[in-house]
């Protein structure tokens, strides 16, 4: 694991299509903002201190399975992404999630109820 002290990373409003795998090794990361890029997916990461993830306005349909291991995540904003139902299932496994923003929020709420 890279010894990194980075807590906040904001790369919003660029033209990134992918994120590096090494992002998953930022052990201290608490806030990740990748809004308004051209991302199709997020890399596999186990950011156990991550509190907030924002990826608004990308092209993400699936979320990495390891996202469920980010056990401190409280806020996720994936508005403006063509999320699949499988992705929503992944999110639903997060134990401390307080806020989840998505376009089809009603569907998500239904899925969450089903999952619980």
């Amino acid at each position, binding site marked *: 694991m*890279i*010894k*990194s*002290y*980075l*807590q*906040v*990373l*904001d*790369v*919003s*409003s*660029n*033209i*990134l*299509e*992918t*994120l*590096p795998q*090494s*992002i998953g090794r*930022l052990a*201290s990361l608490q806030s990740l*903002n990748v*809004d308004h890029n051209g991302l199709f997916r997020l890399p596999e990461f186990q950011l156990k201190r991550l509190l907030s993830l924002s990826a608004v306005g990308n092209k993400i349909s699936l979320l990495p399975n390891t996202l469920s291991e980010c056990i401190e995540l409280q806020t996720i904003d994936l508005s403006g992404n063509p999320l699949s139902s499988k992705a929503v299932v992944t999110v639903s496994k997060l134990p401390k999630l307080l806020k989840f923003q998505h376009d089809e929020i009603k569907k998500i709420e239904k899925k969450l109820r089903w999952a619980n």
Partner: protein
Amino acid sequence: LLPLPKLQLERKIIPAGEKHERQPGKTIVMTTKTTTTGNFSTHQDFVQLPPKANDPSESEKDESTTTTSPLFPWMTRSSLLSDEKNTTNSSSSSHSPRVVYDALGVKLEHDDTTDRSYIDMDPGTAMQLLASYQWTMHSGRLDHAAALITAYKELNGDDHYTTILALQEKTLLRDEKRNIFTRSFEAHLGLVLAYAVAEYEVTHGEKFKGGKLLNKITSESFKTRASEQGGEERARLVSSEITKEWKRVKDESGLGSEVLELLIDKTSRARILRSDIQYHCSLDDVLGMILPLTEFAQAAAAQNTNDKSDFVQSWSVLTVIPIFAQAIFGALGCAARHFDESSDSSIATLRTLVTKVDLMLDNFRSWSHDLFQTDFLLAPIYAANISLAATIRQYDKAQMRLEGFLSDRHSIVSSKVIKQFEGTLMPFSELLWSQLIQLQAALPKRLKVSSLTLMSDESLPTAQQQESKAIESSLKKLGVFPCHVILRNDSTIVKVMNQLNSENDADDGMKEALTTSFFDLHDRLQEDPSHAVEPAKRIKLSFIGQPLRSAPAYQPSSTLQYAIPQSVLLAGNFIESLNLSATGLHYLHPTFGSYFPNLKVRALSWNTLLNNDQILPSGVGCLIEHP
């Protein structure tokens, strides 16, 4: 006295609006507007021109207060003033500066328009005051010296004084062995005079207009101070004593008004010389002009200067060097303006010029060193010449010269004689140290630095590490802060630092970060980078909305293709928060993240970053990689 060389200069007054024509041959035609040159006559030898009349139109202008010292860009005015205040309190609280002005014959000029009084303070007057101060110090009249220096403060209460003060008190007094107050009088006097001339000439060039110094301050401040201090009887006594002292100085040393006026006059004229050479000469003209200067310097170096009793002769050094300094500055400026790196002849001309100027300076130094410590006077010129050498890629030569100057003991060859210099003041020059560091930072040795190479081959990194440690040790020992280091793309920092300066004292943290960043590079490779930086020293840096432009690479193979200011990269260890939003970034090197091991917040939004490898480091161990 050595005869001054006949400069082949011809002054021609041309009415405003009329174009001038270049005369054939080596003759230089200097054109100057009549409104700014006073009563210069036509076709007169430069050094024989009559004194310049004061321009009353300039006396109306006030000196604006700046927030930073031009010589110490990182040093805030307030920090300098705090020391100044302390010095004022400890030196003389009872001597009226006005008394000193009267004693020295400094006259106030009253401007009816603004109903304010001004003191015409030019470098010559400054030197006069300082010379008096040095002399009274030398003669043990500390109270008089204190009064004089107080007067100087009052007269010149702007950055000029604070800069000199900083040089004297912040730099030179840190090393007991090199304390200027323990040096010989000649060294002391020469040093301070050198400050007065060289520092002002170099750093306040923009304040000169047509040779007239616009350094006028109101007399209101010292009037208030004088009335507060009171004690008219004591003031009269001091006045009387100083008058007698000043008279003795003039009578015994020949340091009379004639010499001083000559010095003042030549200094102000020499300033015009620099401007004229720089803007109206060709490179060929410059080489032609340098020739008689070189011959003069050579003759001076051959002169026996062991007889220090001839004080007047010593003064000739100070009357001549300012003129030559301006001529050389002008020549170097001209060369820089006309330099065409695609032209072989242009490069060859500059090589010749650099060599000749080096030789000339060495000769001057050899000549004057025994009489005065003129190192600080010559250091800026050496530095300019070294810059020119670097421009034509004589990096080795520049490096060798710098290392020579900055070592405690070195030798130069002048007039076919090898002269040893020991215990010189050159190592106190922040300008030269800055150049050395900048040269090393801009042209790092080809060194593959990574955790792997460090393990497999430690010989080269160790050598460089030792070199860096040696520099660091020297700087700490001397108390020198290399504040003139300007690395690639650093122009962007200026705006950012100005913002920081106005908001809080974060620039102090940045200053310290930049000071040490160059040296802890190797520590960062080998040790846990976080331990070296205390949380209190960590800084937040924001470049939001500041377009980052990448300057051309120093060398084609350099991988440091960053638009990020290089100083920021080197100071990365201290940076806790870095905001590069909306700066136009479209590329970051894969090792970019490695420069900021203690970073907690990184914002790169609103740019055009494309490649996914550009956000994060590929590995902390890979700090800099030179192919």
